[in-house]
C-alpha cells in the first residue's frame, strides 16, 4: 500500500529536505522502517537504541495517535497519511 509520511520541519534535514515521503507499507512499523532505510540519519531521531519510538515523537495515522491504536502494528490503507509530530519548544534561540 502506498502511504504518505509527512516529515516535520525539524526532521526534514535528515530526510533529504522533503516535506513528505511516499512509502509502501501495510503497517505503521513497516512504513517507518521503510522511511529510515531510505534516510538512515532519521533513525536515531525517531527511535531509541532499543528500537522504541522516542517519547518526544508521536506518530499519527490520519488524525489518530498510534499509541491509542495498535502502535507500530497499526494497519495502514492505500492513501493514508502518516504524520510524525515531534515536540517543539520555540526554536527562536540561535546559539
Amino acid at each position, binding site marked *: 500500500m502506498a502511504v504518505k509520511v509527512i516529515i*516535520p520541519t*525539524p526532521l526534514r*534535514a535528515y530526510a533529504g529536505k522533503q516535506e513528505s515521503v511516499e512509502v509502501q507499507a501495510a503497517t505503521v512499523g513497516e512504513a517507518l522502517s521503510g522511511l529510515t532505510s531510505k534516510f538512515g540519519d532519521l533513525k536515531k531521531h525517531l527511535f531509541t537504541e532499543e528500537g522504541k519510538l522516542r517519547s*518526544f515523537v508521536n506518530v499519527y495515522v490520519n488524525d489518530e495517535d498510534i499509541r491509542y491504536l495498535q502502535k507500530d502494528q497499526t494497519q495502514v490503507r492505500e492513501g493514508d497519511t502518516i*504524520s510524525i509530530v515531534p515536540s*517543539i519548544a520555540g526554536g527562536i*534561540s*540561535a546559539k
Partner: protein
Amino acid sequence: MATKTGVPTAAPAKAASLSNEEVLRYSRHLIMPEVGMEGQLKLKQAKVLCIGAGGLGAPLGLYLAAAGVGRIGLVDFDAVDFTNLQRQVLFGTSDVGQPKISAAADRLRNLNPEIQIDTFETHLTSENALDILKDYDIVVDGTDNFPTRYLVNDACVLLGKPNVYGSIFRFEGQITIFGYPDGPCYRCLYPEPPPPGLVPSCAEGGVLGVLPGIVGTIQACETLKLIIGKGQPLIGRLLLFDALAMKFRELKLRKNPECPVCGEHRTITKLIDYAEFCGVRGEEAPTTVTNIPEITPRELKTRLDRGDDLFILDVREPHEYQICNLNGHLIPLGELSRRVHELDSSREIVAHCRSGKRSAEAVDFLRKAGFRKIWNLKGGILAWSDDVDPKVPKY
C-alpha cells in the same frame, strides 16, 4: 465539549459594569451577540497570565489587552535585543536594552489604560510558579524552552488551570489547550522532552518572523473563547500549522491514562527540578567535547597575516555563509562525515562556525578520524567580529 467552555473560576459577570468610555472602546464586541455585554463583562473580570513576552507573547498580549481582558499578568526576564524586533511586535527600536516586561507593560497600558497589567520580572521556577499562577484563570504558554513548558504544564495540572499552548519552529506551529480535567495535558502528548543532543541544532533554528504572530494570535483567540464560553475550544485537538505550505491540520489528542501528572496513578504530585528532567545540565555535553585544541581569533589573524598556510574550514550552513564568512571552505557539520575526503590532513586546519560549538564537534570528529593539525576557532565568527574585524556582522 460545550460544557467545558468558559472559565471555571471566573466570578459572575453581573458584578462588573462598563463605563461609557469602555462601551465605546469595545463597541465592535458589544454589537455582536457572541460577545455582547455579557461576554465583555466576562472579559473584564478575566485574569490571564502570559508566560513569556516574546514572539508568542507579543500578539497575545496585544490582542488580550485590546479585547479588554481585565487583568493580564506577564512573566519574562529578558531584555529587548535587536534580534527580537524581527518578530516581537510589542517592542520598538527604542526599547532595545530595556527589560521586556516594562516595555511590554508600557505598550499594553498605552493600548488599553482600562485594564490592569501585572508584571513578574523573573524566571518562572518550581519555587515561584504555583504562587504566580494561582491568581489567574487561564495560563498562556508562550515560552521557548522545554523545561519551562513542562513546568507550566505541571503547575497548571496541579492548580487545575487551563493552559493555552503554542509552540513554533522555523515555519511550523503547534497549538492546543491543555489542563482541562477531562482533556489531555502536555505530558499526555509528550511524556518526556528530547535529550538536548537530539534537539535540532542551532544551524537549523531560526523562525519566520510572522509565524509566532499567527500562532500567538490563535492562542489569543482560544483564550478569549474560553473566557466568553463560546465556540469549540481547541481541547483534545492539536492544531498544526505550516506557514510555507499555508496549511492547517488537526490531530486528535487523548488523555493518557498512564500520564505521570494527570493520569490515574500519578507519580508527580508536586513541581520537580525541570532543568534536570530535561537534561539541561547535560546540554553542553555534546559541545563541551573536551581537549579540543583551540586558536583565538587574534592568534589566527596573526598567523594569517604572517602568511602561514592555514586551511579555514567553515562548518556552518550555506545560508549562514551568505551572511558573512572568513573565505573558508564550506562543509556543513552534518555533511562532514561524507565529505571528509575534501580535507587534507597534512595541512593545518582551523575549523569555525558561528559561536564555536559546532566547530568543536567538527574538530572532535576529525581528530578521531586521524587529523592532528587541527584547531577550533574559539568563539567562532562572533569572536572574530569582536576581536579582529568588526566589519563582519554578527547574527
